[in-house]
């Protein structure tokens, strides 16, 4: 990865104070939705954030999309800091970062024509000629496999898969550097998912755009991404290049996720790891490793008291777990 990353997130935190009426609106607890997140997204690459509900992936997306303000930490797009953007810099950021959301039915304004939806990122940020807008709309609609002549139609005249394509066309129209894909195929019919995923992959090369993919389906993550970061309670517990992660998952939670995922064939042999208990809520998480209450491989007291650092091992495979700290300390191969 010689060139600079498109997106760099460092020690990102988003805490929501919960106030209590009874105690005169004092902060009684803290929802630590995102709690110390650091990762990069390279140019033209796809990084997947994988996790269950409450892990903070949606909040992370909102922070990067500047729909919410972080409690602390930095988000850098190229060499622009996302915080406190004003005027020209703000508009430029809006053009550079776009999103495609999960639900194709609520993602498009039912009262707007497709051409207006697709051109919105173009027209709100700077003055463009009608001809320029028209040409770009036709170009992106064609790129996503839709007929530009249909640009005058309304969203309800299209199927779910086509609506996701319209959303993608809209995201591509301002030639962004980064598109956040939030569960982009989960609401689509199974037979439509494949063509949509293929489209995302093809257009990434054509438009040289990076994707941050937020997904719960591990197989989709494997198919679409170059790197995967596994999140739990607002932290990254494991992060590696996709093939490395899937060949050699290390963190106990990652292993449990893999064991829980549905098999592709009845004869697939899996280690049976069933986690007890509920998916945790990020309100006042326990001290120490966030996973220790459910971890089948808990070592002991150290897990309850100390948050394991995210240590990078060979091959850029990072894990946040004391098991590997000890091993690494023993063999002396850990890097900070």
């Amino acid at each position, binding site marked *: 990865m010689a060139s600079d990353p498109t997106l760099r997130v460092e020690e990102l935190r988003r805490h929501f104070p919960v106030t209590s009426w009874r105690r005169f609106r004092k902060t009684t607890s803290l929802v630590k939705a995102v709690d110390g997140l650091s990762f990069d997204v390279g140019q033209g690459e796809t990084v997947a954030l994988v996790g*269950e*509900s409450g892990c903070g992936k949606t909040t992370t997306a909102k922070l990067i999309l500047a729909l919410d303000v972080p409690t602390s930490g930095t988000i850098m797009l190229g060499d622009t800091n996302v915080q406190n953007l004003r005027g020209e810099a703000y508009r430029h950021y809006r053009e550079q970062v776009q999103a495609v959301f999960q639900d194709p039915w609520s993602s498009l304004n039912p009262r707007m024509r497709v051409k207006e939806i697709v051109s919105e990122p173009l027209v709100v940020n700077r003055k463009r000629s009608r001809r320029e807008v028209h040409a770009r709309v036709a170009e992106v609609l064609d790129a996503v496999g839709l007929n530009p002549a249909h640009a005058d139609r309304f969203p309800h005249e299209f*199927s779910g*898969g086509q609506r996701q394509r319209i959303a993608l066309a809209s995201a591509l129209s301002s030639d962004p550097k980064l598109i956040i894909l939030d569960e982009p195929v989960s609401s689509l*019919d*199974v*037979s*439509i*998912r*494949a*063509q949509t*995923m*293929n489209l995302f992959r093809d257009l990434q090369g054509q438009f040289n755009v990076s994707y941050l993919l937020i997904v*719960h*389906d*591990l*197989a*989709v993550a*494997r*198919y679409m991404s170059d790197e995967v970061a596994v999140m739990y309670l607002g932290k990254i517990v494991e992060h590696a290049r996709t*093939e490395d992660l*899937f060949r050699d998952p290390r963190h106990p939670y990652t292993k*449990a*996720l*893999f*064991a*829980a*995922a*549905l*098999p*592709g*064939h*009845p*004869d*697939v042999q899996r280690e049976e790891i*069933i*986690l*007890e208990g*509920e*998916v945790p809520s990020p309100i006042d998480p326990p001290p120490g490793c966030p996973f220790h209450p459910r971890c089948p491989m808990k070592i002991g007291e150290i897990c309850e008291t100390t948050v394991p650092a995210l240590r990078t091992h060979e091959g850029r495979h990072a894990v946040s777990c004391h098991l590997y700290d000890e091993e690494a300390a023993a063999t002396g191969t850990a890097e900070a």
Partner: protein
Amino acid sequence: MRSAAAVQEHAGAGVQPEVILEVKDLRSYLFTKRATIKAVDGVSFYLRRGETLGIVGESGSGKSIMALSLLQMEPKPAGRIVGGEVLFHGDDLLRKSQGEMRKVRGRRISMILQDPQTSLNPVFTIGNQLAEAFVTGQQESGRGRVAKAVVDVLRKVNIADPERRVTAFPHQLSGGMKQRVVGAIAISCSPDIVIADEPTTSLDLTIQAQYLRLIKQLQDTTGVGVIFITHDFGIVAKMCDRVAVMYAGKIVEHGPVRSLFNHPSHPYTQALINSVPKLEERTERLYSIPGQPPAPGQELVGCRFAARCEFADERCRQEYPPQFEGLSRESEHTADCWRLEDPTWRPIPH
């Protein structure tokens, strides 16, 4: 991984458990002002005691309407069952009156729906709702006995601390717990069959794993038969003994799960399996099925999949293919496709 009954059979006992449900040529249509939608258009399958059958289909395939039709619960006012038989222990459920059906629903055959939010009444405690299930099912009477039965069944679905939980309201429970309470209500009257329509769609991955394990446990202990309605081949691979694949109101392929995965014989089945990304291996490129499922209400002639099938010819478009049996040397593996006239043919994509 399979139910106790099926495992026993597999172990070479040779004797299959009896068939307790047999559906023959079920037809259930939706009559709307615009058009008549043939949601379920001649569907046949069967279920043995203790077995798990998976019905796989996408939205629009008719699988949910079919599940509802089995219990005469087709959506009103548009829905109407127009033909076929649903033989439960030899007794045709479609000939029964609503009063007689009430004795079957929830007691002999129960149903779990997709959304636990709407399955549970938000204004009653879960203890209350379970008690009602027991009382209307006439399984128990007398407050003491009912209360004990409620706690017992909560324990059976692995809800910790059941004595305390009975006073909880649905909104106080997580998604996974709600779905387990729904499951508890479903098994409260020890039914012969549980029909589960996409029960895990809204659940997180690890919670889904717990839930599926629970269903297997319940099957092992009670021998209940399960019909899984799903769009996910993964659920089928993990949970089912046999599979039926539905497309546009018809079952296009049917067989034991291994046989179907190893030798998918209908082009749609093959295409669907190939278009799903795999967790266990790296996929270079997914196969994507061209076109779209047929619009409901469209009058269809011939094979329903012909318009999207790369192996289709003129006859496929004009005449609906017959059922071919004995695929992959399993007499129970069948598929409806004209290409199978050639017994060595398999849908290998180009």
